[in-house]
């Protein structure tokens, strides 16, 4: 677990280095569970609106899988991995603030049946690379005035 500037970043999962979505492999199903990390959420503020493509939609890493609206941002929700959208957290769709309250467990957003996980997981941040990435990202976000 990494705490940089009070941002809790668990080290049991992967992170999209730009969009601050986490991706965790569900060992039982092989699916990728996706959510937003604490630093990304800090820059967004309170989430108030989340939309997702329908279950069964093919998604590509780096392309929109839905939209989100928050106090400090309106924009796309970018898929961290390619595959088929296989699950949507209906609780989050009804109450997006759940993501702010519990970003790493109950506030997961979507699950994806991956098609290129071995290749794409190498493009994500994980393990020992997390602390350095978080430090650099905190500095980048501060320079942008986002946090």
């Amino acid at each position, binding site marked *: 677990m990494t705490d940089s500037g009070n941002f809790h970043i668990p080290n049991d999962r992967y992170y999209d280095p730009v969009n601050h979505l986490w991706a965790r492999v569900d060992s039982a199903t092989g699916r990728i569970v996706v959510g937003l990390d604490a630093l990304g959420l800090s820059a967004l503020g*309170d989430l108030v*609106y989340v939309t997702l493509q329908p279950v069964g939609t093919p998604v590509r890493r780096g392309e929109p899988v839905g939209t989100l*609206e928050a*106090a400090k941002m*309106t*924009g796309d929700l970018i898929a961290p991995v390619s595959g088929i959208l296989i699950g949507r957290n209906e609780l989050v769709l009804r*109450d997006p603030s759940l993501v702010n309250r519990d970003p790493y467990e109950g506030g997961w957003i979507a699950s994806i049946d991956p098609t290129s996980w071995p290749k794409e997981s190498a493009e994500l941040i994980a393990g020992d690379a997390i602390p350095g990435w978080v430090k650099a990202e905190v500095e980048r976000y501060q320079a942008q*005035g986002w946090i």
Partner: protein
Amino acid sequence: MADPFIDGTPPSSFRIDPKCFEIRRAHFPDQIVFHAPGLKRYKTSEYSGQNSAEFVSISLTGASCALSCEHCKMAVLKGMTALPQFDGSLFELCAALADRGARGVLVSGGSDKRGRVPLLNHIHDLIRVRRELGMKIRVHPGLPDAETCRALGDIDIDGAMMDVIGHQDTIREVYHLDASPEEYQAALALLERYQVPTVPHIILGLHFGRMLGEWGALEMIAAHPPKLLVLVVLMPLTGTPMALARPPRMDQIADFFQLTRKELPATPVMLGCARPLGDLKVAIDRLAIDVGFNGIAYPAEGIVEYARMQSLEPHFVNACCGVTW
């Protein structure tokens, strides 16, 4: 999702007077401007051209404010570039921002106990920012005193964005300010006297969600014709005493929007940055177009197309309401 139409008032339960759009057609071209200043990152399927470096919000006081108003509690200041954290003057900060592509700034900040944002300490810098850097300058003056109004007249600012409050109880209970509506009216008169373009804002539902001083504020503003008027709607913010406040009902918002269009037929009226998000935002944004407003900040998904359907040609500006380059 919970029903966004508070108290069960769906958007279809109020009537829109077609005269409002006729007023718009009589006084303005068939264009609408959508604004996306750098205060918030913004991208929809209809607009992806925001450049948050183009127009930057600066807080002269960082996250500090002596008033700590009930609806804000300094939350808005936290998203701004903090001058106290910059090693240099306001001019030097603006020069650094200009080097990164900024063409304009909103100079804001927390207020002192008398409701004034401390602009007076930076007048010389602001004059240089305007003359030497050529930047468009908007300011949040708070409730400016005579000296500040006079000094603002020396800068050639693009506009003074002043929240106008029309009821004593709201000034005291929400802003914690020992002032009266008459002092807001006097400030508007002073700004007019010193030929400072004004961009007054009215916050619908500022009194803990209740409509209270909005009509008084509109009356005061109409007496001192502004450059443009911006209406916003209470946006309950987490971590503030108003987090659970309910914004005004859609029919109340619709009534006030229509009254505004009729009272200020030749004044551009904009829907500003703050309003409830989600489905309610979509309804408010459509309403703003239906009643003939001239622009919208951070329009909801689908609103650009909705404007086109009303034969309005959309334009986009990455700056505060009414700023043009």
